[in-house]
């Protein structure tokens, strides 16, 4: 393999410790400077403003109720996700029908539908007379906390299914088989052995679902009605007080953001510390009862309920927006949209901004996230500092994105008076998506035996050469997966975008349209088609990325 002069030069440079450590240090500095510290310092800077809300009892109570609602809903939704997700993951990995691979693909759909489109889709399905409410008088589920729960369940369910499916695929079947040969019927074997062994993945799935629920803003605003959770409260404060009482606005959102971030970190810390010690009830067994639940009728009932829940509560409501989108195709809406007439001009601008931002943030994440992933996976700065970095990288995952956006805005606006809006937007999206790439890559690098790297070094490869020829080819799949997650998360993001800037991305425009629908413009067809385009482009981008990834080996 002929090497270019540049490659050779870079390889040679990489063998100098000083150069490699400079790269690693830069990655760490960028992480602290752009991702971790600004949101924390933003709150500290505005600490004084919090006094405003402490003097306003009604707003204070309202904010506390909203925050309480956020965590109650997140707990309930995450628990429901785990309860409903385990049987689905089980069905996908253990079922024998070839149709299950279709089910596997379908279960990803709500994951890739941008949450703004998902929110509108659910609103139509559950509340609109054209949805399931057509069968009832009035709307079956009016906007409010029930619809918020349904929405959060829908978008976090695929996350749980994906994590549990992964855990079950990696799980060594021999444990369960040993349990069966020792006399345990299938359900008992699953309960006493399999679920106990994959407990860390169940905890991870719960945390992810929990964090997604606490964080989601845009779609929640669409379906919340008069109900408020933390992110909706912050957004409502902006609408109500940003011009009339800026001090109260800043105080209230600083307070709500601080409490949301603090409680999220606290809960995450508690789950992480006590989760592994949580004992599953493996010593109690009910042989005859569990035997009855293990076979044919009971298993059929379980699989039927699992499928019904998935199709009726997750899949159908997620894709319901396709109906008005299709209808819109046969009306004037389509020509208006394609020619960018009226409200569509802003829509296309926002869509372009969304995809530009998604692509840029993905590239930036690869540049600054890759060295960090290697630092974490290979413990480049010792065991303890690397473990600490590993922990800190997760922080943006568990912090509600609107709270993160609020703090970021405080920080950058206070420290740099003329910071361009677009830069704020990039920083916010970078901070929110950063953990996705680092997590995917550090896990992939960790899976590669150190022996391979050492073998490559003893055969004459320089550190960068080792990365090019060994690490990269073996982790390409994870890099693409991480990039896909970063991209889709950025395109879907609403809360932080609303908080940091007045620039409008596509989900923000959709949220605004839904809010303005009562005033007659835009029409239902406009919103439907807007969501449809968003959905269509997301599918196309994902399809392209999948085609690129296809055939890339998981060695």
């Amino acid at each position, binding site marked *: 393999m002929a090497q270019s002069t540049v490659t050779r030069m870079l390889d040679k440079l990489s063998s100098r410790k000083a150069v490699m450590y400079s790269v690693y240090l830069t990655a760490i500095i960028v992480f602290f400077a752009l991702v971790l510290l600004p949101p924390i310092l933003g709150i500290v800077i505005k600490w004084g403003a919090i006094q405003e809300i402490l003097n306003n009892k009604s707003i204070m109570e309202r904010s506390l109720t909203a925050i309480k609602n956020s965590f109650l809903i997140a707990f309930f939704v995450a628990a429901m996700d785990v309860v409903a997700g385990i049987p689905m993951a089980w069905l996908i990995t253990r079922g024998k029908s070839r149709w299950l691979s279709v089910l596997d693909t379908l279960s990803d759909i709500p994951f890739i539908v941008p949450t703004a489109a998902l929110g509108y889709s659910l609103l139509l399905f559950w509340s609109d007379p054209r949805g399931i409410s057509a069968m009832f008088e009035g709307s079956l589920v009016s906007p409010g906390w029930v619809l918020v729960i349904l929405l959060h369940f829908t978008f976090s369910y695929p996350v749980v299914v994906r994590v549990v499916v992964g855990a079950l695929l990696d799980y060594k079947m021999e444990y369960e*088989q040993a349990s*069966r040969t020792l006399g345990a019927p299938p359900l008992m074997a699953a309960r006493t052995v399999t679920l106990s062994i994959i407990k860390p993945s169940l905890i991870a799935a719960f945390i992810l679902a929990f964090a997604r629920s606490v964080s989601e803003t845009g779609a929640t605003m669409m379906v919340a009605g008069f109900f408020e959770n933390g992110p909706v409260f912050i957004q409502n404060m902006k609408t109500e007080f940003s011009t009339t009482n800026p001090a109260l606005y800043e105080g209230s959102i600083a307070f709500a953001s601080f409490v949301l971030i603090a409680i999220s970190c606290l809960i995450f810390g508690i789950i992480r510390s006590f989760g592994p010690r949580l004992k599953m009830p493996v010593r109690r067994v009910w042989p005859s009862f569990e035997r009855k639940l293990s076979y044919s009728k009971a298993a059929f009932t379980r699989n039927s309920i699992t499928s019904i829940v998935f199709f009726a509560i997750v899949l159908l409501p997620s894709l319901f927006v396709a109906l008005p989108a299709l209808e819109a195709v046969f009306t004037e809406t389509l020509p208006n949209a394609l020619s960018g007439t009226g409200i569509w001009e802003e829509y296309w601008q926002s869509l372009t901004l969304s995809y530009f931002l998604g692509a840029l943030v993905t590239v930036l994440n690869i540049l600054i996230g890759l060295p960090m992933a290697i630092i974490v996976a290979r413990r480049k700065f010792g065991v303890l500092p690397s473990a600490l970095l590993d922990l800190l990288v997760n922080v943006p995952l568990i912090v509600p994105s609107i709270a993160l956006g609020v703090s970021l805005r405080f920080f950058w606006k206070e420290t740099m008076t003329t910071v361009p809006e677009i830069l704020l937007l990039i920083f916010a999206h970078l901070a929110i998506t950063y953990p996705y790439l680092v997590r995917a890559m550090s896990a992939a690098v960790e899976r590669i035996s150190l022996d391979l790297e050492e073998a490559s070094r003893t055969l004459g490869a320089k550190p960068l050469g080792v990365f090019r020829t060994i690490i990269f080819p073996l982790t390409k799949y994870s890099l693409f997966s991480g990039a896909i997650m970063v991209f889709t998360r950025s395109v879907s993001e609403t809360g932080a975008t609303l908080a940091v800037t007045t620039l409008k991305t596509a989900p923000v425009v959709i949220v605004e349209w839904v809010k303005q629908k009562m005033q007659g413009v835009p029409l239902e067809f406009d919103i439907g088609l807007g969501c449809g385009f968003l959905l269509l482009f997301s599918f196309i981008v994902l399809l392209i990325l999948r085609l690129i990834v296809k055939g890339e080996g998981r060695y």
Partner: protein
Amino acid sequence: MPDVRLVNVTKRFGKIVAINNVSLHIKDKEYFSLLGPSGCGKTTLLRLIAGLIQPDKGEIYIGGKLVNDVPPEDRDVGFVFQTFALFPHMNAWDNVIYGPRVKGFDMEKASTIGHEVLEMVRLHERLDAFPNELSGGMMQRIAVARALAAGAKLLLLDEPLGQLDAKVRNELRYEIRKMTNDLELTAIHVTHDQSEAMAISDRIAVMRKGKVLQVGTPKELYMSPQNIFVAHFIGESNFLEGYVLKITSKGALIELRGGVKVEIASKDVKIGEKIVLAVRPEAFIIEKGITRRGENIVLGIVERVTFEGTDIRYEVRLKNQDLIVVVKPSLTGEWFNTGDKVVVKFPPENVHLFAYPEKGLREEIAVE
């Protein structure tokens, strides 16, 4: 009582036929080994008996009862996995009494059984240890104890010693054998190690490509292999190609390559038939010399000498250019050096004769 009978059992994985119409009978209280190279189907056969997979065709009987549709938990078998499969979230004690517990035994009874089996495997003092705190040998013992505690009379062992080092492996194989004897269990042991199978089994089934080639006691397999693969896989054999020249009063006269003639005891051949002779390395008689005449004698030169402790191994190039291996005890008899000219005698009664395989000798003895 748990004898095991397989009748025309076939198992496919996609296009691959893992088990091809196998019939076997494993007697009650017998220690039976399934022996063969990797991928021959021996583990699949064991998993079929355990009920972990279902046959596509054929019947499986345990204790005279058809068990094709019986789930693994109701077959009353103890299964020891190659990787031990000790539950990582349970300590040794909880692993051992898992079987009695899930079968609904009361705690007192489960506890008595647990103590009995731990006594048997001499690991009482480690009952609080988790699997990752135990050595390979200890894990293996706990895995056996766990299988025994479930009260099964049929023990299925899937390469149970495969992950252990040689010394521990040798010790444990006799321990397992003694335990199954004492408890009067039927045991089916899967292994690819012929010395392990020979050392502990009452009978062995040699498998290849999903088929059982021969079933017999270790002595029968060694002394009377029924085909080239068994002669090759059990012990070691020299294979020499030739033709049947004529039928004699003692058996048949064979002409090997280069016109070398040897007479063997078998008469079950036709004149002109292409055959393969299989001779064990220790069956040859070897002496120094260049001119000695007599029946079945071939001249040769020692090309390599390897000292193996109890034996010395000689590679001898015969005058027809065939290379043979001769093994002699190191403490008795004459020693030879590289370059020595020797005479090699083929003992007629210890030569096995097989028809030349259709696909060639190399294919017939290939283990992959």
